[in-house]
C-alpha cells in the first residue's frame, strides 16, 4: 500500500521504506485553506477550524508528520501527513481583529492549496 498522499510529488518513489514525501509547502509560502465542509457530508473528525476554511495564510514551518486524525478517529489506517504551522492575520478573519495581531494554527497538508499569488517572507 502506498502512502495516500494525494499529491503527484509523492508518487515517484517506490521504496518500501517510509521515506516521507518532500513537504509540499515551504516557509513563507502563501496557502489557502480548502473551503471544504466534510461535516455536511456525514460523520467526520476534522482538525481544521471552521473559521479558517477558504482563508489565506503564510506557512511558518513544517512541524512534522503525524497520523491523519480524520482516519485515526475511526480506527482506519492513518498514514502520516505533513503538519504545518500556518500564520493568519486577525482582521480579515474577525471583525474584532486588531491590525498586526495574528492567529497561528496547526494544519495538515491535505487541507492546504497554493494561493497562487506571490511569495511573502515569513
Amino acid at each position, binding site marked *: 500500500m502506498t502512502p495516500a498522499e494525494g499529491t503527484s510529488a509523492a508518487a515517484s518513489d517506490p521504496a518500501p521504506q517510509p521515506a516521507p514525501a518532500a513537504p509540499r509547502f515551504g516557509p513563507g509560502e502563501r496557502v489557502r485553506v480548502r473551503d471544504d465542509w466534510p461535516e455536511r457530508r456525514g460523520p467526520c473528525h476534522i482538525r481544521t477550524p471552521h473559521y479558517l476554511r477558504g482563508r489565506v495564510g503564510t506557512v511558518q514551518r513544517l512541524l512534522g508528520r503525524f497520523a491523519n486524525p480524520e482516519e485515526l478517529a475511526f480506527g482506519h489506517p492513518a498514514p502520516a501527513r505533513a503538519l504545518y504551522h500556518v500564520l493568519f492575520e486577525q482582521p480579515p478573519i474577525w471583525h474584532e481583529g486588531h491590525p498586526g*495581531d495574528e492567529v*497561528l*494554527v*496547526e494544519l495538515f497538508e491535505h487541507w492546504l492549496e497554493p494561493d497562487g499569488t506571490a511569495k511573502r517572507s515569513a
Partner: protein
Amino acid sequence: MSTPARPDSPARLEALIGALKARGLLTEQELAERQAQTDRASPEIGARMVARAWLDPAWRRLLLADGGAAAEAMGVSMAGAPPLGVLEDTPRRHHLVVCTLCSCYPRAVLGYPPHWYKSFAYRARAVRDPRGVLEEWGTALPAGTDVRVVDSTADYRWMVLPLRPAGTEGWSEDRLAGIVTRDVLVGVALPRVPSTEAA
C-alpha cells in the same frame, strides 16, 4: 425516579482495563505509574523551565528548539506525550494559547487544564477577541505589542515563554519560578513582580 449520571462509564472502563490486562497490553503497575506521573505534572514544571530559560541562554535555545527534549533533560518523562512547542514572547509580540476545537493542553508540563480553558466562552472568544479576553483578565500589554493567538488544533502542545519582567535582576531560579503562574504559561497573564518584593 432519576437514574444515576452516566451509570455505564465506570463499568465500561473496568471492562476495557480488564481486556487490556487479559491481552498483556497493560499491567496494574503501568497503570499506577502513569496515574502518578499525571498527578505529579503541575504548572511548577513549566515555571521552572521558564525560570531556567531566563537565566541560561543555552537552556533557552534547547527549550525553544525542542520543548520535549528540554522537559526530559529536567527529568520529566515525555513518554507518550505529544511534542511540546514553546512560544517565545518578545517586546513586540505576546502569545495566547487556546484550543478552539477541544481542550488540547501541555499536560506533561502544566498538569490538568483549568476549567475555564475548556469552557466554550474561552475557546470561542480567545481566538476572536484576544484583546478583550486579556483586558477582562486584567492583563495590560505594553503599547506596541502584537497579539499572536496560537490555536492548538492538532498534534503539538504549546506553552508560552514570557518576557522576564524588570525588577527581577539577581533573582534565583526558585524565586523567578515563583512568579510564573499557570495563567502566565497559557498567556492570559504576564509575570508580575509583587510590589513588596520590588527593590
